């Protein structure tokens, strides 16, 4: 039986057989490629085109060149939401990763019932964002009512509320990635460190953390993109409220993040759809650039063991 298998493998590896199959690769790639074109490439290209148009639906688009983009950068709400999103991303990257790594670290220290804890911490991830948003808004309002206030009363409440929500949801997921990373640190290095007399703190900072840098890369990447494209939780928790009025009369929704700002713009009025589309192109460029930068930056810190 085993001999037969070996033969099979040998046959498959032979050039005579594999060449024709390799030559057929477009045929195998085709279904996925078509799906990718229909579901991604085409809408993406159309989206870029529409960002230069005034339209109600894609079929009645009229080309207006850069008018939409000019409006984007004059919209104080968009600029505000950019900085708000950036602030949220920075804080949530730090907080989520610190908590997730700490939890992962403690749960790999041979604690009793670690598996149970891991499951429990992971569970919030299984709940959809919109549901979480509504549930947490009730929780926050319930607590804040005791102090005679409410979630939408202050921008800060919305900010920290969203942060608590996102931590609650994402810590479990990141924890799993860190646990995998920590467990894959070679026992030999740990033992060597022990023999050399390194204490727990030294082991953590000199051995464990440098060796799980690849986990940090992926987790920071995930938390950052998650924060930037955050939408459901933002919509359900505060919906962008409260509103602040600028001296010139323009409105800024003070807890509105980029994605929600784009969505709200789209349905605002007759001429706003193209502007929303232009915003989303800007948004794409921004997230893409940041992610590439961040990947490059953390990749350099990774250690090969």
């Amino acid at each position: 039986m085993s001999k037969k298998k070996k033969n099979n493998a040998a046959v498959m590896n032979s050039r005579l057989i594999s060449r024709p199959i390799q030559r057929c690769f477009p045929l195998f790639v085709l279904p996925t490629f078509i799906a990718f074109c229909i579901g991604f490439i085409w809408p993406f290209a159309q989206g870029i085109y529409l960002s230069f148009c005034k339209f109600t639906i894609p079929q009645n688009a009229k080309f207006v060149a850069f008018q939409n983009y000019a409006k984007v950068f004059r919209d104080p709400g968009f600029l505000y939401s950019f900085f708000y999103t950036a602030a949220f991303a920075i804080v949530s990257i730090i907080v989520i990763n610190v908590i997730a790594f700490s939890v992962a670290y403690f749960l790999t220290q041979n604690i009793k019932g670690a598996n149970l804890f891991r499951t429990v911490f992971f569970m919030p991830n299984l709940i959809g964002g919109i549901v979480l948003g509504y549930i947490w808004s009730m929780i926050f309002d319930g607590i804040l009512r005791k102090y005679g206030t409410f979630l939408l009363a202050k921008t800060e409440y919305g900010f920290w509320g969203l942060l608590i929500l996102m931590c609650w949801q994402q810590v479990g997921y990141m924890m799993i990635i860190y646990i995998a990373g920590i467990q894959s640190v070679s026992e030999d290095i740990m033992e060597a460190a022990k023999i050399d007399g390194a204490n727990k703190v030294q082991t953590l900072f000199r051995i464990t953390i440098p060796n799980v840098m690849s986990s940090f890369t992926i987790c920071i990447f995930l938390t950052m993109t998650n924060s930037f494209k955050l939408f459901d939780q933002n919509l359900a928790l505060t919906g962008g409220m409260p509103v602040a009025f600028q001296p010139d009369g323009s409105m800024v929704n003070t807890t509105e993040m980029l994605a929600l700002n784009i969505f709200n713009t789209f349905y605002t009025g007759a001429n706003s759809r193209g502007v929303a589309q232009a915003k989303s192109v800007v948004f794409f460029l921004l997230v893409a650039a940041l992610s590439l930068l961040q990947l490059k930056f953390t990749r350099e810190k990774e250690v090969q063991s």
Partner: protein
Amino acid sequence: MGKKLLALLLSAVMVCAMATGCGKEETPASGEQANAETGKVYYLNFKPEADAAWQALAKQYTEETGVEVKVVTAASGEYEATLTTEMAKSSAPTMFQVGNQNALATWQDYCLDLTGTEVFNEMTTEDFNIKGEDGGTYAIGYCYEAFGLITNKALLAKAGYSVEDIKDFASLKTIVEDITARKDELGFSAFSSAGLDGSSSWRFSGHLANMPLFYEFRDDNVTSQPAEVTGAYLDNFKAIWDLYINNSTVDVAALATATGDQSEAEFGKGEAVFFQNGTWEYANLVTDETKGFLMNKDDLTMLPIYCGVEGEENAALCCGTENCWAVNSQASEADQKATLDFMKWVVTSDAGTQMMAEQFGPIPFKAAKASENVFFTAANDLIADGKYVVTWAFNYTPNVDAWRTGVVSALQQYSANGGSWDDVVTAYVNGWATQYQNQ
């Protein structure tokens, strides 16, 4: 062997799927041919609560005339998004709603001028229609609604008053404050909670804010969307709002998060005398068994909202509509004709008018049937007495959702967070100007 069998099974499933796929495609192809001559109707309905009635009516029309009528209902709050996607399809809706000027501005290219059509000629009033800048009627109001203070007459009598005692803001205030003073003894409050949760806030940022808008537009003879508002009657808005929040079932601090259901339940259970809402609440309060309020309709009426404007003792209810039909001007001519025929049938046939009366109350068409709804009776009685109708001035609001969000946020700050009334004024006046420029 097992693998082969599995492969065989899978391919069998695939072949079946393909066969049914083709089969399905064939049916509409033959149907389309028949419809090429007669046209067909596709109605995008935006009232989920009327979906079942529309489906039944569409079925009946198809049985009677053979014309295909498809009714699709957008989920609550998703109408604009649904319309956008549906319009982009090759078989776009032929009949849809355009509720206000803002919506007309967005959908103007898709609205047929309905002036002079048969269904248009059946109308008894043009008050509820939406006109474009060129004077054409691009959407016709197929029903109207009225809002005001829904009043529990039985409770009012318990407090020692009758609806005749309420003639203007001053008399309303006296009675309301008296009820609040005797709240514990009476066991009920004057107003149900004026909650500012999203499910309830539209009653104030939309409907209550209509009072200052209406009087301002009346004074300034506004007949199309103004670029700016002055806020001349905002003090009156403040007066009635203060009355609501200081004499309600719940504490001021809890208002920011109180919901629409909560307010309705308070009124339904007899915890409050007044409940600001509209004619559409009739079914919820009187006939809906799942809600279980089952109030006696003879105990209920609707009073005008008084806010201290001179001459307001002659005001009737706030009547208007956001229920306006538009016909897709980019649909084929056969489809447009089929749609107009269907609309005419709905407002003239026995089955159609019956359904409209049940679902939407009295409709502004010649063949309208009477409605059970006591709130409409109140509205009609006031108009019959020669009182002036407070129209829905808010239909002019630019970027309506954004403007209302600003007003709600400012009301929340003012009511429950120690904010200043000036912010409400800013949201109302400056917000309008900004949204007008943005649109």
